[in-house]
């Protein structure tokens, strides 16, 4: 079978080898030449136009986030044309019959105007809100993909940190937008934030007065949030996204293990024309889906909630989904408060909101460094891990997701109670336990599944896959014939870097660098790696294939014997 060179060079594609009858540029002249002589566009084209991107659906999750952000900018500009970020009181005289004559803030009045009087305004408002929901969701999904495939490892730790920053900022962007229309949900959310800021020990009251310009709700908050929402946060987001993308281009995209894929190359399609068409097309698909969502699914019907009034509230007052876990934590927190002297320490609000959010982002930001401290792995990684190959990390990730999900579910405990006809109090008591227990169960289950899959891979490598053919031996025993797996597959499933659990407490690593907290590190290393299933060595593989070559079917019984043999051979084979 003819195969292309293992690492084909890009040169044959760089040279414009267009035959004369094909369309294309004959020579560098005219406007391109003019531009090139001024900004060197030729160099940029040569550097970037044929950059290779690998194909995998999960690599497009980040693109969804990027494109929803662009949609947010486009629809946001449209909305600013009519929105008035003012808390001044006006009387409503617009077309919505059920609000006529009510006093309301200019912000809410203009939100109603956009929804009822501006043609297409309601659609754009709904697209904007759906895009915000999708933006944070896609960011989260993308971050999980990066986590579970180990794409945050060297050299991409900085890009991971930028990503964590983007995540935190997107929450602020989302929340400030949620608050702008000044409807009952907005106001209720702000009331919550007011309570949350107040609860900060020592400086809480000062922070509250500074943010709200005095007492809640004051008269200036909406215009301040408007600045945050349309200038400050998007500005920083744009800068961080630019840095994120620049680093992506510099590092080149990671790829999953596969035939011919190594840490030294990237295999896929060129940016121009294939990825331009695919990625550009995907932008239009994301935009199109968002428009259809805006057309077909109601989101935040502000006219139902009415203008904000501090004496009103609605059942089902929830934040958007990305703040739901904080809401849940606040809901299930027991009512702990300390009254020391003339002071009040509101643990019941401060711990589940400010502290918990801080904890999540700290843990997220530190994780790549913690893992590297344990592995002492100083090499660059461009091949992604398959989640099963790093059982402890995968299990940690699933445990974290489970914990988050439990908080999130707790944030909708009232909706759960009404929709599943259970007691609200029972749901709350259950969730108080579940946030601690469910992650532990998830960790154990995930790790077992990963180890099982690792064993299956080892089995396939050594003894091949099940052929589905049952043989009956002369003495009447049954066994299934195994067929060896392809070299492509064998290569693909042996690509992970394996780490040995620290046998003893090491104080310096392989590079002679001192290790901080060596005892803890050694213990963590054992916890991390000791149950991993080792992939077979080259010698073991050869021995196994010799033992049960493709011609003679493998006996199920002898599989275990071969395993023992492997182990002996593995020890012997080491030079």
């Amino acid at each position, binding site marked *: 079978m003819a195969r292309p060179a293992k690492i084909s060079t890009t040169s044959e594609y760089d040279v414009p080898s267009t035959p004369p009858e094909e369309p294309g540029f004959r020579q560098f002249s005219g406007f391109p030449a003019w531009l090139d002589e001024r900004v060197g566009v030729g160099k940029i084209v040569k550097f970037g136009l044929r950059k290779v991107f690998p194909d995998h659906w999960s690599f497009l999750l980040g693109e969804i986030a990027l494109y929803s952000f662009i949609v947010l900018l486009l629809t946001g500009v449209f909305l600013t044309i009519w929105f008035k970020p003012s808390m001044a009181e006006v009387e409503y005289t617009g077309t919505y019959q059920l609000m006529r004559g009510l006093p309301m803030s200019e912000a809410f009045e203009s939100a109603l105007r956009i929804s009822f009087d501006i043609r297409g305004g309601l*659609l754009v408002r709904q697209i904007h809100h759906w895009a915000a929901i999708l933006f944070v969701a896609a960011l989260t999904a993308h971050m999980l993909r990066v986590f579970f495939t180990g794409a945050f490892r060297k050299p991409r730790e900085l890009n991971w940190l930028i990503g964590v920053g983007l995540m935190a900022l997107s929450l602020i962007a989302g929340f400030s937008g949620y608050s702008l229309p000044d409807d009952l949900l907005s106001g209720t959310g702000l009331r919550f934030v007011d309570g949350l800021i107040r609860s900060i020990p020592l400086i809480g009251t000062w922070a509250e007065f500074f943010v709200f310009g005095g007492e809640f709700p004051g008269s200036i908050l909406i215009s301040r949030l408007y600045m945050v929402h349309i200038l400050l946060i998007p500005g920083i987001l744009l800068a961080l996204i630019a840095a994120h993308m620049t680093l992506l281009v510099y590092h080149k995209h990671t790829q999953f293990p596969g035939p011919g894929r190594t840490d030294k190359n990237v295999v896929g399609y060129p940016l121009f024309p*294939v990825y331009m068409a*695919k990625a550009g097309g995907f932008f239009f698909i994301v935009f199109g889906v968002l428009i259809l969502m805006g057309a077909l699914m109601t989101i935040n019907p502000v006219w139902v909630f009415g203008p904000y009034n501090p004496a009103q509230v609605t059942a089902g007052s929830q934040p958007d989904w990305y703040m739901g876990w904080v809401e849940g934590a606040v809901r299930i927190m027991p009512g702990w408060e300390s009254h020391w002297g003339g002071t009040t320490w509101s643990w019941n609000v401060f711990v589940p909101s400010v502290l918990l959010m801080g904890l999540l982002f700290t843990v997220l930001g530190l994780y790549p460094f913690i893992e590297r401290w344990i592995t002492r792995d100083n090499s660059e990684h461009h091949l992604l891990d398959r989640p099963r190959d790093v059982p402890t990390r995968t299990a940690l990730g699933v445990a974290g997701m489970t914990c988050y999900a439990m908080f999130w579910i707790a944030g909708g405990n009232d909706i759960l109670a009404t929709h599943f006809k259970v007691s609200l109090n029972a749901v709350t008591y259950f969730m108080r336990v579940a946030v601690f227990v469910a992650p532990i169960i998830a960790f154990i289950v995930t790790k077992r599944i990963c180890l099982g899959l690792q064993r299956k891979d080892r089995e396939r490598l050594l003894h091949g896959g099940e052929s589905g053919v049952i043989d009956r031996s002369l003495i009447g025993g049954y066994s299934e014939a195994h067929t060896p797996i392809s070299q492509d597959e064998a290569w693909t499933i042996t690509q992970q870097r394996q780490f040995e659990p620290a046998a003893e407490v090491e104080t310096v690593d392989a590079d002679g660098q001192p290790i901080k907290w060596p005892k803890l590190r050694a213990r963590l290393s054992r916890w991390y790696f000791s149950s991993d299933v080792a992939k077979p060595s080259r010698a073991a593989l050869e021995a196994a294939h010799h033992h049960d070559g493709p011609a003679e079917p493998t006996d199920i019984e002898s599989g275990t014997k071969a395993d023992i043999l492997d182990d002996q051979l593995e020890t012997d084979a080491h030079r």
Partner: protein
Amino acid sequence: MSSTRNNDLTPARSEQSDDDEAWDQYPVENPGIEPHVERYTDVNKAAGDRAYRKVITMFALVPILAILFVVVYFAVPKDAAISLLGTDFKAQTLLFGLTGGLAVLLIGVAAVTWARDIMGDHEISEERHPAGTDPADRKDALAMVNAGVSESNVGRRKLLLGGLGGALGIVAVPAIVLFADMGPWPVKAVRRETIERTIWAEGVRLVNDVTYRPLKASDLEIGQLVNAEPENLKDLHSHEQLVEKAKSAIVIVRMDPHTIKIPDSRKDWQVGGILAYSKICTHVGCPISLWEQQTHHLLCPCHQSTFDLGNSGVVVFGPAARSLPQLPITTDSEGYLIARSGFTVPVAPSYFERDSRNDYKDGDR
């Protein structure tokens, strides 16, 4: 520390040579990139033509949808509705979205189809380079930095760097001080006039929220809940009214006096089982009015803190820590409900400087 091996792409152990390591790390030979298999659309002309027609059709539909969008903009009245699958849709929103959304979606689907079925599909491989700089360039870079450092003379004139750092640091102080006017400073005197005070005072009538209808004790039946405000709230306007409403809103309930606990100290805070409580939750400040008339429990819809209004507003469930402040009330000569005084403790959520020793605790007399 910088060692060149840090930039090696192959993982390496110091005691082994690279070859051994690679031998161990990859027990299987690299089979190379899969051989290219031609697409169906490349070998079958009919299939290729079909893909081409598909893309062209999708592009051709876009202008039609765009024109429809414009027609809808000018032809469909704003208040028109379309009934579809049991929902009454606003016609404009729905039609704008369907025409515009489909048009945009079609552009995307067409472009991707073009890329998948018509554009060249040879996978190519690009070499990677270590992210770090190679040793020679590192050396050059280091030399350049050192040249700059030496030219700046910070080695000999050591105060320069300290001076610059100090100046930059201190210049941040005015910048931060500039924000001191973001809000009034909540010093004790300010707190006493703002978050620790409401417009409730002796003799202020309790009136129905929204309608400002004064309430007579005789108007209330057992099991009744009234969302009320102080009468003098009417005199305030715009945001001043909102600020006061956020503190002064109350709920008035009437319960059978024999079924509730009234501590001795609060015997004269009520009128025949009519009690008034702050409507603002002591947790994070949502207005609470989910009152169960049979259990006397008041539930906050935001975080489900539950207060027992039949027991001086103590917390019976949820994340709130302090009982709901009770407003002492009585009746005036005409029989209208009035406040005996303002609230005896600050209402609304906790804050650091709050003296929470005087709040009612379960069992207080």
